[in-house]
């Protein structure tokens, strides 16, 4: 866990070994740093010490010593600690005997058997008899929900589950009730779990040290499972998950605590999303549809041969490819390379929603490049003082990011403004919740920006030109007018402006140098999502204003500042960086720029088309007028193509449609060739999260049926069309990316085995840039001169 920079260090002795740690580090954590294992049950990283189980008891020597809980006691200067002395072992034995009076001891039928903390500790402390004769106090099992079971007789009341639900997930859907041995975990307020705020994230199950809270979808022996660490493919937060499978079937996803950008915590999709891998409607075999007859399955060779033969006729701009933003970097790179180098077309884009497109263009316009975040999510633990969360419910759109907002409220007392149509728990825990009228979020942000200028809270560093531009554009947005049109009280707007601009300090307190930084979370890319409200808001306007606000307060380039824009699809950032874009080649080189194009041409050894291709929102129109005749269309987890009526109608006008999908779909019925595509659990490669962390995606199980990754499909077609594009080994594709995309110059599989890397990473010695800082040209054009600031 990243801790706040502490200058003061203390040195204590643990089991005779000198240990020097930052002041305030608990004995338990200090011991872990020194590789001394202190057994524990209720300790959970990232959460407040609880101190209930007493398994972590240690002995402190000296006059004021004694037995003490190591998880909550900070190591003091000169403290002498014994972790396994006789009194300590005796105490542990006692505590375990106490647990085992009531614990069900139904290990043979318990899912947790084999990875149970109580089992392990009983074994470690060698508890084999129990002098107490009280009969077990038992209660029936309860079904909390479709996915969660609670088994009272196994519960040891360590409260890890209620704490994670409250402190990290932020919903407090479960609580402990009753006292003494009758105490139990129950949905809050005695409701049914589905009536609480439960997000079904399953973190209560994940943190349960015993088998009290169990996953109803899981039934297997833990020791019978193969586990693979990979990255979740459901959103661009990039959570590390541990996928456990048996005989090629994913049984569950578990959590690797203190690992990855998510420190082990995931959301509902990370916990149970793997189940789609075994969905009955998976496409398993290539299929060819003949006009007038139903489709028939063919071999890959036949399918690829037929595609290669047909595509020979559609070279040039008649061909288009719509690539899923869930694809890995390597797949995406090969997809655009195929389209450009083999087919000679720039008609390649990702399948995006209208809001995603609007956000992309807006970010590109104000920052000069499409980045999901100028900063790093790990700053939530170290630098965030204040945050403004704009747009649809971040708890649904980027759940793990919302966890760290709750975490920062509790541990860093950060001040948060929520601007959203949705009412969700963060609104109640934030300092301020502004709920503008439908469609007026942009106006509200303008009002806030205007207030910052009116109150003279804008940064001194802002250029005169920028200030004039903003002042002029905000001339019409005085407080009263904004208050009237947004329905938000004027003083609240002002308070939000002050909170954001002063980093939560407020106007009352004098600050010596400059105000602390504030971060903006902008979820405008999710406007229109079926699970959130506020569909009338203008995503482009909101995004532009978020960037303007950060610019106005000089929050770009500062730790704990910047703008973070979660955009949804798992590898949105990566597919952009790879050049899956009608106007940009890999590395953000403009198609229209001759020098850039020449570089790529030299590398690929082909001539590239010189005009921009059609973007996702233009392709349907281009098909309708017959400019595009052949289309390679991928499916996405968000079912982008299926949800776009224009595109669906246009598809019938195509002469040749290749559908590469993971699931049965109406498009699979009308496509000429249907190719089964592998899901992210089945492929190797890399994902780039919205905060630009490149992480390693590993194949956890063989793909369903004969499904193949996108890259393999394109490599297969390319070789049949006489072009040499290799897919395997995947690491070589990433190496090729590194040679063409300067930002990925220092990324390869070997480095990623250790940990994720924040791009830009220019070479193998570059640690990566966790914060992007504005270049020498000033803020007017934040781009293109992003230079990487050495990671702290």
């Amino acid at each position, binding site marked *: 866990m990243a801790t706040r920079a502490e200058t003061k260090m203390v040195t204590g002795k643990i089991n005779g070994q000198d240990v020097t740690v930052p002041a305030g580090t608990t004995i338990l954590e200090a011991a872990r740093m020194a590789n001394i294992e202190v057994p524990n049950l209720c300790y959970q990283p990232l959460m407040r010490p*609880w*101190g*209930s189980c007493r398994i972590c008891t240690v002995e402190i020597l000296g006059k004021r010593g004694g037995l003490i809980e190591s998880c909550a006691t900070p190591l003091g200067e000169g403290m002498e600690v014994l972790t396994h002395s006789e009194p300590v072992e005796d105490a542990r034995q006692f505590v375990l005997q106490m647990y085992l009076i009531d614990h069900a001891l139904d290990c043979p039928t318990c899912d947790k058997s084999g990875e149970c903390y109580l089992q392990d500790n009983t074994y470690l402390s060698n508890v084999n008899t129990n002098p107490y004769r009280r009969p077990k*106090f038992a209660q029936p099992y309860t079904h909390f929900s479709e996915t969660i079971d609670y088994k009272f007789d196994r519960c040891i*009341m360590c409260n890890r589950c209620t704490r994670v639900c409250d402190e990290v997930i932020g919903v407090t859907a479960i609580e402990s009730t009753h*006292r*003494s041995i009758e105490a139990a975990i129950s949905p809050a307020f005695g409701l049914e779990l589905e009536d609480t705020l439960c997000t079904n994230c399953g973190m209560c199950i994940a943190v349960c040290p015993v088998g009290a809270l169990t996953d109803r979808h899981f039934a297997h022996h833990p020791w019978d499972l193969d586990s693979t660490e990979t990255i979740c493919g459901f959103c661009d937060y990039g959570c590390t998950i541990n996928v456990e499978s048996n005989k090629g079937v994913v049984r569950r996803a578990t959590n690797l605590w203190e690992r990855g950008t998510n420190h082990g915590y995931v959301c509902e999709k990370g916990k149970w999303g793997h189940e789609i891998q075994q969905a009955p409607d998976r496409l398993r075999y290539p299929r060819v549809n003949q006009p007038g007859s139903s489709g028939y399955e063919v071999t890959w060779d036949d399918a690829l041969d037929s595609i290669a033969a047909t595509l020979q006729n559609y070279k040039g701009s008649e061909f288009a490819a719509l690539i899923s933003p869930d694809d890995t970097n390597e797949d995406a790179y090969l997809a655009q390379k195929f389209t450009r180098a083999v087919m000679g077309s720039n008609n390649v884009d990702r399948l995006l929603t209208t809001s995603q497109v609007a956000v992309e263009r807006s970010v590109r316009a104000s920052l000069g490049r499409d980045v999901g975040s100028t900063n790093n999510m790990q700053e939530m633990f170290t630098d965030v003082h204040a945050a403004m969360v704009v747009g649809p419910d971040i708890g649904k759109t980027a759940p793990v990011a919302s966890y760290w907002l709750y975490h920062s409220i509790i541990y860093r007392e950060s001040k948060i403004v929520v601007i959203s149509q949705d009412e969700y728990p963060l609104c109640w825990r934030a300092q301020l919740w502004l709920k503008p009228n439908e469609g007026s979020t942009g106006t509200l942000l303008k009002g806030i920006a205007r207030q910052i200028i009116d109150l003279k809270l804008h940064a001194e560093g802002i250029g005169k030109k920028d200030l004039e531009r903003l002042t002029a554009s905000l001339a019409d947005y005085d407080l009263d007018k904004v208050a009237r049109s947004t329905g938000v009280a004027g003083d609240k707007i002002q308070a939000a402006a002050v909170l954001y601009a002063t980093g939560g300090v407020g106007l009352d307190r004098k600050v010596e140098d400059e105000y602390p930084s504030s971060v903006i979370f902008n979820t405008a890319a999710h406007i229109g999502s079926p699970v959130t409200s506020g569909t009338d808001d203008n995503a482009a306007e909101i995004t532009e204003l978020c960037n303007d606000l950060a610019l106005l307060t000089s929050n770009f380039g500062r730790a704990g500042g910047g703008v973070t824009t979660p955009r949804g699809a798992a590898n949105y950032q990566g597919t952009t960086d790879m050049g899956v874009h009608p106007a940009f080649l890999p590395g953000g080189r403009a198609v229209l720029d001759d020098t850039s194009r020449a570089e790529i041409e030299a590398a690929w050894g082909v001539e590239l088309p010189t005009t921009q291709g059609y973007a996702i929102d233009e392709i349907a129109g281009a098909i309708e007028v017959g400019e595009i005749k052949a289309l390679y269309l991928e499916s996405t987890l968000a079912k982008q193509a299926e949800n776009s009526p224009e595109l669906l109608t246009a598809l019938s006008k195509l002469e040749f449609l290749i559908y590469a999908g993971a699931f049965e779909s109406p498009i699979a019925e009308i496509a000429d060739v249907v190719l089964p595509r592998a899901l992210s659990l089945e492929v190797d490669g890399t994902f780039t999260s919205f905060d630009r962390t490149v992480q390693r995606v590993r194949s956890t199980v063989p793909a369903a049926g004969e499904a193949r990754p996108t890259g393999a499909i394109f490599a297969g077609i390319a070789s049949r069309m006489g072009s040499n594009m290799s897919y395997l080994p995947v690491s070589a594709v990433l190496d090729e990316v590194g040679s063409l995309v300067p930002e990925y110059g220092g990324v390869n599989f070997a480095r990623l085995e250790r940990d994720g890397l924040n791009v830009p990473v220019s070479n193998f010695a570059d640690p990566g840039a966790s914060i992007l800082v504005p270049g020498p040209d000033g803020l007017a054009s934040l781009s293109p001169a992003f230079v990487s600031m050495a990671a702290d």
Partner: protein
Amino acid sequence: MAQPTSDLPRLTSQKAFDEFRARAIEKWEAIWNGKKTVVSIGIGSSSIPVGALDVMAAFERIADKENLHVRKTGVDGADWTDVQVRVKRPGEPAVVYANVVPSDAKGIIDGKHRGKIIGVEGDQPFDGIQPLDTHPFYKYQQRIVLQDVGVIDPDSIEEAIARGAYMGLYRALFELTPEEVIAEVTTANVRGRGGAGFPAGIKWESGRKARVTPKFVTCNSHEGEPNVYKDRRIHEGDPHRVLEGILIACVAVGAERGYNYVGGEYPLAIQRFRKAVDDATALGLVGRDMLGSGKNVAFRLRTGGGAYVCGEGSAMMYSIMGVRGQPRTKPPRSVEEGLWKRPTVANNTETLSNMRDIVVKGGEWYAQFGTEKSKGTKLMTVQGPMKTMGLVEVPMGINFKTLIDEVWGGMRDGYTFKGIQTGGVSAGPLRYEQLDVPVDFDSLTPLGGMLGSGGFVVFDETVCAVDFARYLTAFNRVESCSKCVPCARGNPALVETVDRIRFGRGSQRDLPLLERTSKHVIELSLCGLGQVAPMPLLGMMQQYPEEFQAHIDGVCPCGVCPVSAEATVEALAAD
């Protein structure tokens, strides 16, 4: 429910308060010097069940005819006299009647029922009646906290002010600096009355020094122990004293927010205290710009839901914050991180109730009472077959035998003293021969007892030590908050083992087992409640080892325990 007195003016300056107080004193004097006979009836949670309201109604019915001024007061602590009525005829001292029933009303006014008279107010005998202060129950008392309990109408802020209420706050606002207030408290050396005995002055000092804001002051009025009722009586008899103590603490510490946490089992205390807060707020004694001094204290009353553990400092704070009341690990201490992670000074009701007199009369004055290490007076309550049972306020260091034999009048006829359970459910019992000790914070501990919050239970020869130990342990077993395993599961284990002994199924091995279990529960529990939970049991085992042995041998000397019954240990598991 009592409504706030609506015609109270808002006092916005020192002068306005002086004038209001002068008027209040005038009114107060007018009651006692008027032409009417003043009948004061002690009404509180101890007297209402024996008909105090009916007695009051009976007097009110004849009030016009007999020219009476009938008024209610709090119960002055003498529970054995309930319903207590004080009748003051013009020009005469007030005569105190005990155990009055409604049908006595007329007779008392007519001068009958002389048998019910226990004394007369003042220091001179009157009409052959001895002064009340010569009665043993009152003789040893030094009433500071209780000085107005049983004197004023707890619902009347004017009577309270006439008797000196808010003079301490007045001094703290206008005449002393916060540092001087703390200096007085430090000089008084008043130690925490909740049981731990931590000096309040030091606590306030650290609260004052804490730099983080906002700060909080909490008053812990949650008496969960089964035999303590002192805070309840203070709230019922003189709520303004508690409120004033909290306000003084807020001013001294520099806290702008004060909380009083009262157990929900005390409806009358809550009602009267709420009225007091409403009235004080209307007068401008609480809230923004108190009495025009420029100081603010926002005040809130929070009520508990009935968990014993919520009397523990950190658990109380969680309860106030609206979450499950459970103690937390320390450090940090509450005075560093308490309510909402802000510095919080937590004091007991009784401690805060002393503050008015400490501030008004000075720490030196207060320190003259009590012993060298335990200054001042202490409220003590008793239960059991005593002759004059009730709440008393005696100087620290009073001899325990005096307290039992004289103040509380010794055992009732037919009962033989066997022992006295000290420290609520947090310590062991004492035998009679051990009682020749001063009662203060430190003297009882070496004997295995504890002053605690001053709640005692006297038990007689018909009480079986094993059975009683089981009761006390079972209280802790039921009230354990479930957080720490040693307490949550250790106490049930203790109950189960004691039950085995009670049911005649104990063995020689069970006594060491009880000791081992207790040792771990004491050593490993997080909060004070868990750490003392096995104390009553250990105390009983130490004081009455022969009874435990007798049970193991198959006999209950008192004939209480089902040693030979056909019951099984399993049957008990459910309770």
